[in-house]
């Protein structure tokens, strides 16, 4: 079932070859074991779920916005792992590529562009925290109650290796449904996703243009230091003869003295 070739390990004459060949077999990650013992799928699920939830909470708890971004990366990365486990490999890869690799890099970029010392950690007041904790806990309770209230959802999953999902998904996106949704599925018919796909494409294009427009290059109205320097020639005489400054050998004040560091 796991698609392994039968092999003769016991022939010890060529040890290295079989070791190489077998260790690179499809690793047993997704293979649910019929034997009693640890279900790897469940273990990995627990791992990824713990990571996703833990780092999601850490995002809330953290004050430093850079760390928040980092925790978010881990949380969403773990979510991608959950998608892989659920058999939605394509979605998982998309999550990694677009969400983690694209959107979050963008976000981190934004964080770093605005990460000035006072803005890195804007602390929430403790009353806000309490309020958020109470509201969050009640919302969580509500959601969980709702989730647990449907018995059919409580049934444990199957132990079957999920089939690839990318091809039918791709076909669906160009308007051909290669799968028939199981009876009773809300989708019912064999609707493709050509139109939504196109709408999303146009939407993304619009967003691209819009974002570029919003964050477009603007010129500062107030003069910058660079302009002052550029117009500094020929220079206006700066009287630099303060007797005390000279006698002590201190530098006299000047236009560029802002650049002077401390003593070497």
């Amino acid at each position, binding site marked *: 079932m796991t698609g392994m070739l039968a092999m003769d390990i016991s022939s010890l004459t060529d040890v290295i070859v079989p070791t190489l060949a077998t260790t690179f077999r499809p690793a047993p990650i997704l293979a649910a074991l019929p034997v009693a013992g640890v279900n790897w799928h469940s273990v990995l699920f627990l791992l990824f779920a713990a990571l996703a939830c833990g780092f999601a909470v850490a995002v809330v708890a953290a004050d430093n916005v850079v760390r928040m971004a980092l925790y978010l990366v881990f949380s969403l990365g773990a979510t991608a792992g959950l998608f892989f486990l659920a058999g939605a490999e394509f979605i998982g890869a998309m999550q990694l590529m677009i969400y983690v690799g694209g959107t979050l890099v963008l976000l981190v970029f934004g964080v770093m562009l605005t990460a000035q010392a006072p803005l890195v950690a804007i602390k929430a007041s403790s009353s806000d925290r309490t309020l958020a904790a109470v509201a969050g806990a009640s919302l969580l309770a509500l959601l969980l109650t709702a989730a647990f209230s449907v018995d059919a959802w409580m049934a444990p999953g199957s132990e079957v290796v999920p089939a690839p999902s990318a091809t039918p998904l791709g076909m669906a996106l160009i308007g051909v449904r290669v799968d028939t949704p199981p009876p009773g599925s809300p989708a019912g018919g064999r609707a493709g996703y050509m139109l939504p796909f196109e709408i999303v494409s146009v939407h993304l294009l619009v967003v691209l243009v819009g974002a570029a427009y919003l964050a477009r290059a603007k010129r500062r109205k107030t003069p910058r230091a660079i302009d002052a320097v*550029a*117009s500094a020639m020929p220079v206006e005489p700066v009287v630099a003869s303060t007797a005390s400054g000279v006698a002590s050998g201190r530098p006299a004040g000047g236009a560029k003295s802002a*650049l002077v560091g401390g003593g070497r």
Partner: protein
Amino acid sequence: MSNLIDDDPRIIEFDVRTDEMLVNMGPQHPSTHGVLRLVLRTDGEIVSETEPHIGYLHRCAEKIGENVSPRQWIPYTDRLDYLAAMNMNLGWALTVEKLMRHEVGEKARHLRVLIAELNRIGSHLVGMGAYGLDLGTFSPFLYAFREREKILDLFEEACGARLTYSYITCGGATADLPPGWLQKCEAFLDQFEPIIKEYHALLTTNAIFVKRTAGIGVLSREMAIDYGCSGPVLRGSGVDQDMRRDGESIYTGMYDGYAFEVAVQKDGRYPRDHSYPSVPKEAVLGDCWHRFFVRMLEVVQSMDLVRQAIDRYAACKEPLGEPMKLAEKLPVGDAYLETEAPKGQMGFYVVGNGTSIPWRVRARSSSFSNLSVTHELCRGCLIADVPAIVGSLDIVMGEIDR
């Protein structure tokens, strides 16, 4: 103010309010050619202001010069532009000779041309290799140093030192060339000549190199003169000036009878005495590429001069002659002389008061003036251009800080 931004193409539009950052480039930085410290005021990647801080290598050379005799100061000139110590020796020796109205013999004259031009090749090789390093390519650096090592071998054979020679001295040179030296020198030149094509392929005509240097750090002719730039920096801006041709007679007399064409773009073209790569379309006169190219031309030019000097030197049958005494009395008066060192015009000023110790010694270094133009060239450039621009000026901190 907005007009200023409109007019200045170097100032790139900015899109996000980023705070200006003060960045220290140096004194410990891989690309500042020694202990130069550049304080950059940057807005993101764009440098709005550059302030060179120098003096980390200040050794009071001029003060020392007021306490030793001119010949004793020769070793200190070695340490000015330590990459072209022969040229430094020569400049100081000539200045003292000018003050003393002393003229060296024919053989010493050709020996000096030979040695100084050979050292110019060595210095330009370092400048070229280090410039490649500034732009992120390592191999040309080693190719350049490989050839420079051979020059240093020749020098070592002539005077026993590889970096601080103290060879050319007031009144001549410390020793004559050993037998067989000229043949070795000629063999080196023959072997070195084709290698220049390699440098052109790796740097001068390399597409990325051209992209990084052409149109970057454009130094206009007027600004170059105004800032007292000299040497390849000045000629890279199209100013036709070379002290070997235009200087004072005591110096130009050394090159009497030598045929060479000043490496400068005249009427839109460089001298065509050898086959050189053509100027890329993107290059603007006065940019980093032209400064670099002038140096490459001067390498070939110096090779020609060395060949001529070898012939002339070999033809001189009289002995070299003795240099001045270690403590020869200086006349009252002062003398200033500029020579064409590899980095630019090296000026020495000496004031004598009748004793053997000069009253005042002054070294006007070309790199000092060349470096002072940095803040003009780097305004509005990108951070990556700063090493490209500073590297194209080919400075040596030894002669800036003195």
